[in-house]
Structures are given as structure tokens and as C-alpha cells.
């Protein structure tokens, strides 16, 4: 079956947009074709700096004919209904059939639509798909035309079964031609089928597939590094980016001048990555950064790359001179002396300066340290110095090095090593894949930093919304949760109710992966007295295990039954029953035994919870199952005697209260 080849050739597409654009092009074309009844064998989209390409294999030459039966109005319906139906189907009265149905005679229309030739369909849908392609940012370029593309579009190559598909978009008519590499090829290239196209492009120094370009770069850097006895420091983000900056990637190795090798590796690496998009290399034995870098050019230079390497080395020297200048200048002033300067930096209009923030964090870190058994003075010291590196030149230039630089400067100032580590690690975890700090001083500083942000922003009314979280408060809450749980740190959060709810939501997300049910987290959280996350999770886990057991399932059913009855009767009586049961009024064996079981369980659960022995608490609940079941089997709650009835309702209220010691069972689903 025939194939489609489509190439949209433009000026340089931003690297960060290429993969998404290829995916969108594929998605929109699949949608447009399936909407028109097409099935095909395969589809693949490609993106490079100057082109988006789509290849579809096995696309039928003709759309399928469609035969549709449409049910119309009844034969005795008003004329207007029939007119409407005729208009809709494009048929005349004579062409309609009449069908007998149980409700009477109904008009039926048989509509046949001939499938169109595929090239006509393609000529119609490709411009529509192009107009819909959602570029993150796009531009106008044709005078008087509102049409947008990511950068000016120069040509469109479109063939079906080797023949031109004629259409135009933004004043560009489709054709059979494209161009190769900007500098390594000349003139137009004609292509009618994908294989031929891909082959000719390769000959014209264009590697169409991003994965292939990434592989060429990866292998190229690896091999070139190996020649120097080095290995590359992996950097997937950079690899993806540079794959989008070259149609014919060529790796060259350059040298970093020795005078820069005393500068911390993080500075060199960040400067090379962000400004120059170079890969850093290291010695595989020591892990130390090497004085070489790998650059990816889009060019096979006539001189073997001498000028390119020399040029890049020169640019890097200027870059690193700047960085080294900052590094040298920064160390002339201690972190301590920089704390004052934080008075001049606004943290947030409603929350004052960074200095005020640091004062809050310092106090909180001290409190936390005291409770988790960390060195209080060291935790306070770390918190005091935590933000001081924001005033340094290096962090001004490379904000992503905040913390990392703080540690270097703290060590230079001869601060305690655990303080220096905490200055670096108080930002952690930065993302879901980042490790949490394990050292207690760091834990105190990291918790203080995040909890201060959360309480301050919440108090200022700057809560995250469904669409936006500009201050990364979700990440902060998740960080607190991970630090506490992964280190099993016992710490009562003591939060306002809206923030506690926020934490409960984050906790559900965090524990979802572990298969912990969100309704159980709600059930424990809504007791309102639990703000030690380690204990809370232990309780939820025990509860989940209990509910999986037969006893648990039955007890939950019994609970639901009890609560349903209570709700109904409480509404009737207009009052809430509490667990004040009069023993005298108990007459039947089943209610007596439930009363006895509840009294025993209630006391035992209190003890077990006090000892945080959640397994024991669950066991106590399990012991209630039989008495609860027999109560419902043998006892009529709504007794004729008013006092007896109320006493039995109080007994159910007692069951409710007993179970609510462990969790709010009304929140539990199923």
C-alpha cells in the first residue's frame, strides 16, 4: 500500500521544541486520518533543527465508501420534521424507505458516501493540521497573514505514493524538494519516497532522527574522551539539547587552561553547560574533573576543526575568567559578613527580606534540632548561613549553584563540616529523584527552610492553586514528608488546619506509589490530632492490613450499618447519641456481650495507641467483629420501649466512638 512523506522545512527550530512538535504533528495527523475512517500500517515523526518530517506507511489510496442508515421521523409526524430530515440527508421524499417499528411507521434514509481519493483528503487535512500545531511560542512572518509557525517556513515536501500532494500553507506551496545541511550541502534535493529521502538527506549531511544524533554524540564524546584516558560525565538534558542544535553533529575535544583547574568543579561544569553547552569529562579512576571538554559542532570543518576548537577555547577562557574572578572575589568576604547584606534582598513583598527569613529559619532550626536530637547550635549556625551565598558573585551568575557554593565558602571560612554540609543540603530534596539529607544538622536546617516557606506563604494567603504553584510549595511539602519518613524522624508538625490538609494531600500523592490507600490517610488525618507523619503512616499501614483481613472487612460493614442507623435515628430525634450506655437497661445477651467487648476494647485501644502498638490496637478492633455481628443478628435496635431504644443507639454510638479512636471510619471507602 502507498506511503505518505511530509517535510516542513523552516529556519532553525528551538532545540527544546523539536521533540514535542514531532509528537504533536504525529498525534494531529493520526487524529485527522482516523476521523476520516483511515487505517494505516505505521507512522513516524522526526525533528531536526530545520525540519519536521512525517512518514506514514500503508495508507490506502482511497477512503472507504461509507453506507449509513439514518432513522427519521415517524410517517405521521408534522411536515416540518420531514423537511428537516430531508435537508439533513440531502435526499428527496421518494428516496426514503418506510420501516415498521413497534411505535409505528418510521422514515429511513440510506446515505451512501463515496470514499474520496487519498491525495485530495491529504491536501485538505495537512494544512489544517499545520494550523493546529501547538508551538509553545510561534510567530507571524508573512505580510498581511495572521498564520504562525515557529520560525519562517520555507518549503513543504509532500508526496503520496511518490506523487505530489498539492496544497499550500502560509503562502508556501507544497513541492518535491528540500535542502540538506546549511553549510555542508548545496542546492535542492528532490525526494518522492521516504527511503530515498532519508538516504539523500544523509548524503547531504542531515541525520534525520534525534535519537540517532544523540547516539552519535554520545559515542563520539565517549570515544574522544577515551583517547585521552577520560570518560564523559553523563548529562541527559544536555545531550537532548545539543542533539537539537546540529543536523550533522561532530564532536571535538578542547582544553581548559590549567589556571582554572583550582576553581570548584561545579562552577566549571555549570559554566560550560549553561553558557557553552559543553560536556565535562573526568578521570575514571579518581572521579576528578579533567582539564578537557567535549563540544558538539554542526560542522566538519575544512581544517579538521582547528579553528573551531581554538575559537571555543577562547570563548571558554573568557567565560571561566569571569567565573574565577567571582570565585576569588567571593572568598574575600566571609559568609557571616554577608548575612547583613540579606537585608537588602527582598524575599517576597509580603514576607520581607531574606534577612528576616533567615532569622525565622534560624529560630525554627534550633527548635527542630532540639526535638530531633541534632546539635542545636550547629543547626542554628547552618540556618543563619544558609542563604548568605545569595549575595555572592558566583551564585548571582549561576543561581543553580546556591547551596553548593555556600558549602565551599563555609569551609573556606573554617565553619564546622556538618554546618557547611547543611548549608548545601538545606535545599534538598530538590526534586523527586534527589536524595534527602541524612545528617541531623542538615535535616533540621532543611525542615526549617521548607516549613518556614510553607507557613509563611500560607499565612500570607499565597497558597498554590490548581494551575499554579509559583513558590514550589508542593515540592516543599513533599520534601518535608520525604525527609521525615525516609529518615524516620519523629517530629510533630503543629500546623494550621489548612496547611495540614495540604500536607494530607501531598502525603496521599507520596504514598500512592507504595500502594497506600488515600482514603485511609484521610481517615487518620481527620482525627485532627495526628501531626507526626512517621506515626501516622505506621497507623495507616496497620489499618490497611487490618481492613484486608476478614475481620476487618466485616467490622467495617458492621460499622457502616451502625452509622447508617444512627444517622437516621439521630435525624428523627434531632439529637446526637453519645456513648453513655446504661448497663441496667441491657437485657439481651448479644447487647450485653457487645457492651462488655466495647468496654474492654476501648481501654485496650487507648493503651495500645499510647504505646504506638498499632498491631495491638487492630487486634482489639478485630475482637469486636463477633459481638458486633451477633448484635445485629439478634437485637432489634428500634425497640418499642423508648429508653431501651435510646440505650441501644447509645451502644452503637459507643461502637462508633471506639473505632474513631483509631481512625475516622466514615472516610473509609468500600
Amino acid at each position, binding site marked *: 500500500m502507498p506511503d505518505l512523506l511530509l517535510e516542513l522545512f523552516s*529556519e*532553525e527550530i*528551538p*532545540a*527544546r521544541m523539536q521533540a514535542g512538535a514531532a509528537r504533536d504533528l504525529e498525534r494531529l495527523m493520526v487524529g485527522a486520518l482516523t476521523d476520516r475512517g483511515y487505517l494505516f500500517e505505521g507512522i513516524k515523526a522526526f525533528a531536526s*533543527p530545520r525540519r519536521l518530517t512525517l512518514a506514514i506507511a500503508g495508507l490506502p489510496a482511497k477512503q472507504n465508501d461509507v453506507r449509513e442508515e439514518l432513522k427519521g421521523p415517524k410517517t405521521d409526524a408534522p411536515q416540518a420534521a420531514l423537511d428537516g430530515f430531508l435537508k439533513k440527508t440531502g435526499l428527496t421524499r421518494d428516496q426514503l424507505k418506510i420501516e415498521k417499528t413497534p411505535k409505528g411507521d418510521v422514515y429511513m434514509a440510506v446515505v451512501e458516501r463515496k470514499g474520496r481519493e487519498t491525495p485530495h483528503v491529504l491536501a485538505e487535512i495537512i494544512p489544517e493540521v499545520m494550523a493546529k500545531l501547538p508551538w509553545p*511560542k*510561534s*510567530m*507571524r*512572518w508573512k*505580510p*498581511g497573514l*495572521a498564520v504562525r509557525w*515557529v*520560525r*519562517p517556513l*520555507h518549503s513543504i515536501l509532500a508526496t503520496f505514493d511518490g506523487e505530489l500532494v498539492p496544497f499550500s500553507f502560509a503562502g508556501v506551496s507544497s513541492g518535491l524538494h528540500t535542502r540538506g545541511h546549511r*553549510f555542508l550541502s548545496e542546492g535542492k534535493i528532490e525526494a518522492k519516497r521516504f527511503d530515498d529521502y532519508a538516504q539523500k538527506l544523509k548524503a547531504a549531511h542531515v541525520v534525520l532522527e534525534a535519537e540517532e544524533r544523540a547516539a552519535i554524540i554520545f559515542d563520539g564524546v565517549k570515544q574522544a574522551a577515551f583517547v585521552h584516558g577520560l570518560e564523559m560525565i553523563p548529562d541527559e538534558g544536555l545531550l537532548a539539547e545539543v542533539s537539537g*542544535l*546540529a543536523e550533522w553533529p561532530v564532536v571535538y575535544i578542547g582544553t581548559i587552561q590549567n589556571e582554572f583547574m583550582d576553581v570548584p568543579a561545579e562552577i566549571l561544569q555549570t559554566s560550560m553547560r549553561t553558557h*557553552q*553547552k*559543553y560536556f565535562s569529562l573526568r578521570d575514571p579512576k579518581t572521579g576528578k574533573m579533567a582539564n578537557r571538554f567535549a*563540544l558538539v*559542532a*554542526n*560542522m566538519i*570543518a*575544512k*581544517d579538521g576543526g582547528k*579553528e*573551531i576548537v*581554538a*575559537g*571555543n577555547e*577562547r*570563548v*571558554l*577562557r*573568557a567565560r571561566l*575568567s569571569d567565573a574565577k574572578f567571582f570565585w576569588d572575589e567571593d572568598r574575600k568576604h566571609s559568609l557571616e559578613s554577608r548575612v547583613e547584606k540579606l537585608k537588602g534582598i*527582598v524575599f517576597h*513583598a509580603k514576607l520581607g527580606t531574606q534577612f528576616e527569613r533567615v532569622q525565622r529559619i534560624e529560630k525554627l532550626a534550633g527548635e527542630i534540632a532540639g526535638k530531633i536530637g541534632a546539635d542545636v547550635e550547629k543547626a542554628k549556625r547552618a540556618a543563619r548561613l544558609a542563604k548568605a551565598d545569595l549575595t555572592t558573585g558566583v551564585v548571582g551568575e549561576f543561581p543553580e549553584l546556591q547551596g553548593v557554593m555556600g558549602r565551599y565558602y563555609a569551609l573556606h571560612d573554617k565553619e564546622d563540616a556538618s554546618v557547611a554540609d547543611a548549608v548545601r543540603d538545606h535545599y534538598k530534596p530538590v526534586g523527586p529523584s534527589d536524595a534527602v539529607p541524612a545528617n541531623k544538622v542538615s535535616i533540621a536546617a532543611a525542615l526549617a527552610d521548607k516549613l518556614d516557606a510553607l507557613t509563611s506563604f500560607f499565612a500570607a494567603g499565597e497558597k498554590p492553586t490548581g494551575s499554579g504553584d509559583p513558590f514550589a510549595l508542593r515540592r516543599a511539602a513533599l520534601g518535608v514528608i520525604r525527609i521525615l519518613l525516609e529518615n524516620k524522624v519523629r517530629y510533630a508538625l503543629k500546623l494550621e488546619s489548612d496547611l495540614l490538609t495540604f500536607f494530607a494531600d501531598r502525603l496521599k500523592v507520596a504514598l500512592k506509589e507504595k500502594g497506600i490507600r488515600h482514603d485511609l490517610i484521610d481517615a487518620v488525618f481527620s482525627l485532627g490530632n495526628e501531626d507526626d507523619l512517621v506515626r501516622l503512616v505506621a497507623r495507616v499501614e496497620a489499618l490497611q492490613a487490618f481492613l484486608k483481613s476478614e475481620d476487618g472487612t466485616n467490622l467495617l460493614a458492621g460499622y457502616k450499618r451502625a452509622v447508617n442507623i444512627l444517622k437516621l435515628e439521630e435525624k428523627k430525634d434531632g439529637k446526637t447519641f453519645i456513648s453513655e450506655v446504661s448497663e441496667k437497661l441491657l437485657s439481651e445477651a448479644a447487647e450485653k456481650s457487645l457492651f462488655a467487648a466495647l468496654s474492654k476494647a476501648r481501654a485496650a485501644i487507648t493503651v495500645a495507641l499510647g504505646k504506638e502498638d498499632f498491631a495491638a490496637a487492630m487486634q482489639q478492633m478485630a475482637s469486636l467483629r463477633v459481638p458486633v455481628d451477633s448484635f445485629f443478628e439478634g437485637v432489634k435496635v428500634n425497640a418499642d420501649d423508648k429508653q431501651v431504644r435510646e440505650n441501644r443507639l447509645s451502644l452503637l454510638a459507643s461502637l462508633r466512638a471506639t473505632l474513631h479512636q483509631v481512625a475516622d471510619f466514615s472516610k473509609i471507602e468500600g
Partner: protein
Amino acid sequence: MAKARTFQDLILTLQNYWAAQGCLILQPYDDQMGAGTFHPATTLRALGPRPWNAAFVQPSRRPSDGRYGENPNRLQHYYQYQVILKPAPENVQELYLGSIRAIGLDPDLHDIRFVEDDWESPTLGAAGLGWEVWCDGMEITQFTYFQQVGGIECDPVCAEITYGLERLAMYVQDVEFVYDLKFNDQFRYGEVFHQNEQEFSAYNFERADTEILFRHFQDAEKQCRELLTGKKLPLPAYDQCIKASHAFNLLDARGVISVTERAAYIGRVRALAQACCEAWLQTPMGEYKPRFADKDAG
């Protein structure tokens, strides 16, 4: 393809090259401004339907970038070479590469790349899409397709090409310290400008009288507004906008404008720029006919 040996050779080569492409070769604007984009030949002429092709050197002042003549490449006064082409020709990238060849950078020996960089000027209410052009990892040019100036959509869209002349010259001459550049065969750049950098850095950071500057800002703002009421004079009004912008830059360098005030000042200059642009479009040279303002707003 001999390399432009001196700073002035570089300028002359660009002048000749763009003159040959049919550009008007204009002279620098006689007001202090932060970038060539402020030249009315760019800001105002980018608007409206009339074709416009011009190239010029524009001395640019960024008071905060002063380093007392001690930084290898940072200057508070430097030169931009600006080309403005309206409408943007189909082959504008090729035209640009021709200029790179003309100054002696052979694309067969170098690695020339167009790397995403969308330019925007909050003070002018201007924005566009484009790239920074890299030569062997060095940013040598800013290349922008204007989409909006003074808050008004550009139609036709023009291409703006801005070369940072000192940086480009340092690359071509293989010099690491800007003051070592050969201005011509007789003079170094430092002999021409080093003392300027020292004196103006001291002025920008220490001596500029902030009270006077605040007054200048207000006066310029007031005069600009006055020139845009009654019989409108957008060109003199725009001069006042440029003056206000420079006064703001100096105040900023003196460190007397707080972070929150900063945004407000930028907003005030932008409001002036927008008003000037709108008034310009009512003049014979501006002759604006909104064509797709409704379809394409936002």
C-alpha cells in the same frame, strides 16, 4: 575573504556590505540610549506598512555595565551595528551569513549556529522571536523577527540584526582584552576609550547627582506627554522618551531604585514609548492601517 583587521575596518566592511544590499546607511542617533533598538529608525520605522531598510552604528550606553576600564569585555559605552529590514526578506539568514563572510569569518572553517533567543524590551513594549548567532560557541549577533513594538503588532514583520561590534572585533582580531583591539593601524581601542570608561564608571556609580536625574526623568516624562497632546509631535516626544529611559538607567546604576520601584519606572517608560508609537502611526510616515488587529489580538 581577508579578515577585517581593525575595528574601523569591521565597521566599514559592514557598511559597504549592507549598502550593497540596498540599505540606507544612517548615522548614529544623537541621544544617549541603551541599544540600537531605541534609534527611531528602528523603534518607529518598525511600525506601519511602509518598507524600510536601514543600517547604522549606534553608540550604546549601559551605565551598570561600567567596570572602570578593568574588565576584559564589559563596557558602559560600546557600539552596536544595527540592520533593520522591513519586510524581512525571505533570504534574510543568507544575507546575514553573507555579512559574516564579508568580515572574514568563513563558515567552512567555523561552526555557525542559530540558537534560540527571543528578544524582548520591557521598556519599549517590544518583543520578537529569533536567535543569538554563535560562531564557535561565541555569541556574535542577535537576530530577531519583531512581532511587537510599543505594544503594537508589527505588520509586515521586520528583521533586526544586531552585531556587538567590540565582541565581534575581539573574535576576528583574536584579542582577549577589549582595550587591545586595533581601532586602526595607529590606535588601540584603549587609547580611544579607556579613560572614558574610567571617568564614566565613576560618574555612573558615584558622582551622578540622583536628585538631578530624578528631575530629568520627570521633566522628560512631562515634556513627552505634553508633546503628545493637541497637535501631536511624536518624533520630539520620542526623544524625551529616550532621555527618560537613560535617566532611569543611570538612577538604576546609582542603586537608588528598589526592586519594586524598578518595575514601576520601566512601566512609565513603556507607557511613553507606546504613546509615541501610537502617535507616530497617525503621521504620514507611519500611516497605519490595522489589518488583523481583531483576528490576531494577543
